[in-house]
């Protein structure tokens, strides 16, 4: 254990904890932009700077290991001014088109600008322009909005193990891009999208569907593979418009392309919306009322059972339906119809 003092509070943390972790554990807020607890410390944005007694310059709390006896100050006029300059510099090279940005209301940069009250900017100057668009089908990459926090680069390498993007060029022209600035061609897991603090990265299909303030969030479980990732469905009206996942889930907020981008089927117009019955053998399936359809099912199943016994019927349940539904299904077959001919496709 390590004991240190932050803003006058004595705090104990385990070995290896950073100053930022120690502060957060004690409920002390420090602004961050490039930090994510799931990634290695980076120290790029400089917002999390703090003062440490005996150290002449401010240091980044996200990268600095806590040590015994350390005395840390997380807010002072000097720190406030430095942080504000950093945000001001970021805004001086930003399109500042929040009015039409997908992430408005859900953007770290916007929050910071608000917090520091930055309406004016002392540093207006040249702004990066990237007229060439990345035409990949899944992820919209608007790099003029990028703050180069490097999170996307790190998540792609450290977590996903793909390394599809990296920082290229130097100085003011530094840029996150795929090799040779080609269009992104990767696993499209969208981990980068989920971690980007600004509107630089977004799902292509999100565009214009609704911003965070109008959105209702519902936590549920992914309908695809057996990993069982927890999804947050973002809905606007009766439409699912986006899928995300929270950091404190068993899947740590990571998803695959299916879980993150494969939700559009829900709102498809070709969903079945009414029962269909085939009124004569060889005829077409025609819309019917629930009453007609249910009566027909009950009658036909009953007739087969009466004529050939319950074992002339079989049921296939679904590995995609809920426990409750599957339970009810087999209960119906066993207790209602009287056969054990019930299975699901665990074998495929």
């Amino acid at each position, binding site marked *: 254990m390590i004991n240190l003092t932050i803003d006058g509070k004595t705090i104990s943390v385990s070995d290896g904890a950073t100053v930022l972790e120690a502060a957060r554990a004690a409920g002390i807020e420090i602004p961050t932009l490039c930090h994510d607890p799931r990634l290695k410390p980076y120290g790029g944005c400089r917002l999390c700077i703090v003062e440490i007694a005996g150290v002449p310059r401010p240091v980044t709390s996200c990268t600095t290991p806590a040590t015994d006896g350390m005395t840390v100050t997380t807010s002072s006029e000097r720190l406030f001014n430095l942080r504000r300059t950093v945000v001001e510099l970021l805004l001086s090279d930003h399109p500042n088109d929040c009015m039409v940005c997908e992430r408005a209301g859900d953007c770290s940069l916007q929050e910071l600008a608000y917090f520091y009250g930055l309406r004016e900017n002392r540093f207006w100057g040249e702004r990066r322009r990237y007229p060439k668009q990345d035409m990949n089908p899944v992820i919209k990459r608007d790099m003029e909005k990028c703050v180069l926090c490097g999170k996307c680069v790190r998540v792609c390498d450290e977590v996903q193990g793909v390394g599809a993007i990296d920082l290229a060029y130097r100085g003011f022209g530094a840029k996150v891009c795929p090799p040779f600035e080609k269009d992104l061609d990767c*696993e499209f*897991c969208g981990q980068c999208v989920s971690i980007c603090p600004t509107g630089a990265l977004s799902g292509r299909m999100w565009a214009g569907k609704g911003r965070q303030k109008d959105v209702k969030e519902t936590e549920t479980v992914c309908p695809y593979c057996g990993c069982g990732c927890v999804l947050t469905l973002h809905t606007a009206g009766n439409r699912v418009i986006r899928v995300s996942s929270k950091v404190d889930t068993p899947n740590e907020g990571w998803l695959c392309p299916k879980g993150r981008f494969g939700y559009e089927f829900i709102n498809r117009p070709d969903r079945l919306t009414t029962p269909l019955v085939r009124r004569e053998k060889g005829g077409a399936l025609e819309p019917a009322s629930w009453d007609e359809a249910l009566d027909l*099912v009950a009658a036909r199943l009953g007739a087969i059972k009466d004529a050939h016994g319950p074992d002339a019927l079989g049921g296939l349940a679904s590995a995609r339906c*809920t426990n409750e539904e599957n339970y009810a299904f087999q209960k119906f077959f066993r207790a209602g119809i*009287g056969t054990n001919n019930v299975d699901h496709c665990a074998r495929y």
Partner: protein
Amino acid sequence: MTNSIAEIENNDALFVIGSNTTECHPIVALRMKKAARKGAKLIIADPRRIPLVKFATLWLRHRPGTDVALMNSIMHVILAEGLEDKNFIDSRTEGFEEFRKAIAQFTPEYGEKITGVPAADIVKAARTYAGAKNAGIYYTMGITQHSMGTNNVWSVANMALLTGNLGKESAGVNPLRGQNNVQGASDMACAPAVLPGYQKVADEAVRKKFEAVWGGALPAEPGLTATEMTDAIIGGRIKGLYIMGENPVISDPHMAHTLKALKKLDFLVVQDIFMTETAELADVVLPASSFAEKDGTFTNTERRVQRVRKAVDSPGDAKDDLSIIRAVAARAGYDLGPASAADVFREISALWPAMAGMTYRRLDSGGLQWPCPTDDHPGTPYLFKDVFPRGKGAFSPIPYIESKELPDEAYPFVLTTGRILFQYHTGTMTRRSDALEAVAPEPFIEISREDARRLGIADAGMLSVSSRRGSLQVKAMVTDRVAPGVVFMPFHYHEAAANVLTNDALDPVCKIPEAKVCAVRIEKTAEVAAGV
């Protein structure tokens, strides 16, 4: 899984066999990559150069269908070099001697002859797996969808027993479940021989317990599995079938056979969210709800029961599956009992001790892993800590049996099937999601560079692929992912459905069909067209 997903990152060694984890279980794969980054040894046994190979310490490319021979020879080395966990074998297992005899002939050299994996690599794998403090085995359909799939699973269990890698953290035997609620559907007894919670239908006491709650007498004879049902339909014994949320036309091996059966039925009900290839054959189609439109629970591959919550209303007149089943049952004169998902869940937890401690309230914060027998039980991250359900873990002597259909002159290639990252199962959902469909819009068949060169096949050229059961046309993908003599197809695409070709030969025990190995012939379409 005997263990949990989160434990994977602390494995010292991982043996991944028959699982294309990055594409089929991407989030489990993240933990595997993390383990590898933290220094774990990752051994992969797969006929294809799957993407996870990039992170592997050792890749064993064995011939499809030779898993038992591979594992037996690995275990032979473990015994020959004295790397087994003698304590564990003595105190917690039985049947070791017969097992030892059964693998006596599987020297690494013999293993090499059957599997094509160099003997030296077999030795390396044995030392790595047995030498690790905590080693986990991970597998999926790659070893189960075989006519000897059960044998493969027993071999996996043998490996874990031999090295004492069961009943502890970050080890174990871990089948990765392919669909989001396969675990739950099995737990809930959508299977012919058991009642919920794997309680045997044949056991009278068990039946009594359920009869008391459900009302009415329960049948004591186990029923038919899905694949057996298909034969029973063709044989005229089954006349009516009710399918909820499945698309067997595309997902089952030997499509012609499936179609024949479904068409022969007197009555077919299909309950689904889209007009699937199977629904098109139905007499009645009932519109159901997608996962986003209902409440309930799913149980994932690590036995974690988690809440499904309603986010939007179903379109039109579509109803959730629970209401539909209740309504059908009611009209058939049976009262299914509780109407809400929450109440159904309460009934389940009352009948299955492993879920007795779970309530929707408790599930709200992150779910619970069964067994969770009491209200204050935290759930069970890994199984068999002190005992196995049957007391001691039993070794099974497993002989090597060849796949049912091996390549010959007429059908010289081995076809193996599987999934890809961007599509899912029969594509009903993923192919209706523009982003995914844009990335992976069309079917393909992977063929090795050598074979492609020999047959004059160009990348993206159209091929005709046929087996004894059917044929289809599909674009070639020339790649070094597959070995010469082997071809691979994803089974998601109805326009070139791999299951037109696959074999429905069954495993004798669990009746799983042999979707992973069959023999096919490959021709360029131009040649075929010329003949027509």
